[in-house]
């Protein structure tokens, strides 16, 4: 639609912001992107997301939307006619996609955060976090097998909600493998996901916004240095 005001506040390293960019790309929505500095947040960000004060925030016709999963569903509903469906059309499949996306954000990504923020202080704690990530992916391998029905994506022939929810973390998975020396997405344990990952990254809606692993690795090392030097949490 012409003249629509669509603005995304994001961070290049954020998998959550990437989700929104992929969703907008799928629907062919033109938008302006604004890179936030989380150490010096813009007035607009603070005004648009007073509850969490974080990215991504989508501002559509001056109305702010927060939380990547919420934003993806909004994009799917508002621009329903402009591109392929992001949420599956079948209610049961929708529930499956929603369930696993929430699992990723509530359970799986917390393990990743422990590794990056060094909340996992000992080798045992880091190893345990890695195992949680590996186990999570093994579960998703089974989910993929059921959802894809032999096709390329969780959404079958096209990428859908769960593809985006997980795929947006692919660069971070590689970075964590480099940081820890452990194999998190293992060709031997999750071969379907490995193949899916390659196809996902090559998708037209994804390839322009997938984070560069080398750049992300430097960023992650910087974050770990920050947490190493930070005062103990209160």
């Amino acid at each position, binding site marked *: 639609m012409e003249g629509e005001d669509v603005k995304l506040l994001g961070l290049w390293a954020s998998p959550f912001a990437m989700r929104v960019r992929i969703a907008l790309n799928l629907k062919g929505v033109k938008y302006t992107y604004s890179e936030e500095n989380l150490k010096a947040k813009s007035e607009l960000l603070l005004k648009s997301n*007073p509850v969490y004060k974080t990215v991504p925030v989508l501002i*559509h016709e001056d109305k702010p939307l927060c939380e990547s*999963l*919420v934003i993806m*569903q*909004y994009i799917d509903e508002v621009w329903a006619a402009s591109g392929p469906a992001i949420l599956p059309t079948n209610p*049961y499949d929708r*529930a499956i996609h*929603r369930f696993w996306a929430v699992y990723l954000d509530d359970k799986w990504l917390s393990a990743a955060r422990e590794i990056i923020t060094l909340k996992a202080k000992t080798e045992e704690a880091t190893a345990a976090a890695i195992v949680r990530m590996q186990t999570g992916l093994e579960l998703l391998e089974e989910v993929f097998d059921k959802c894809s029905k032999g096709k390329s994506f969780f959404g079958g022939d096209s990428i859908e909600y769960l593809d985006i929810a997980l795929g947006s973390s692919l660069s971070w998975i590689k970075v964590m493998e480099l940081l820890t020396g452990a194999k998190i997405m293992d060709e031997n344990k999750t071969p379907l996901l490995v193949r899916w990952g390659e196809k996902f990254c090559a998708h037209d809606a994804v390839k322009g916004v997938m984070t560069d692993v080398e750049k992300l690795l430097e960023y992650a090392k910087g974050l770990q240095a920050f947490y190493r030097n930070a005062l103990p949490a209160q």
Partner: protein
Amino acid sequence: MEQSASSLKLFGSWASSYTHRVQLALKLKGLEFDYVEEDLTNKSESLLLHNPIYKKVPLLLHLGRPIAESIIIIQYIDDVWPDLPILPADPYDRAVARFWCHFADDKLGPAVGAVFGSSGDEQKAAVVQVHENLKLIEHELREGTFKGKRFFGGDKIGLLDIVLGCGSYWLAVFEEVTEVKLVDAEAFPLFHAWLRDFEEQKEVKETIPAIDKLLEYARSIREMMLSHSVAAAAAASSTTTTNIAVDSSS
């Protein structure tokens, strides 16, 4: 879609506010369902089979297929039976409702649980958190997207009413059991008024257990928590949150 007899089976726990959310949604839709009361200290084979990831209630079986996580279950119900909609019609309103549902389970619920599971200075800090969170909701009611509405869903209760409401009755219970003021009608007049209107709804009255049962239950949990160390209590409260039923899910 026509509903065949007993096509719906809900596994729940009587004191679980997450279970109440789904029961309320089903009642609002006028849907018949079989109900299985789970003993959360001795979970059934069926529950463990159908919800292997979280092993929690509520769990809905529809035509034998499981759906878990209360907010996902409610959206599923709304998708399958679109009459008498629970989610708002407008995409922006839907996004706002979903956002505040996320906030309810991510921030408000755990904060209330922390008040219940602690004492002394730790509890004082937890109360401050609850008030900070309630202020945000009060602001939305006063000046934000919910301004002038009787319910978060408009004239009738909707998803956010269900999610916030089934849980907010614990506030009065916890206030009595811990002797801490959580929802001051003067500090949060709109929230207070909304909760009162919510609790007056016929289907809500049919869903929420009697207050004396809730009080008895809360007292026994609180006693158990305080008889352990503070650290153990904090650990327990972080897993019980607003519904305080052990192993009850979101």
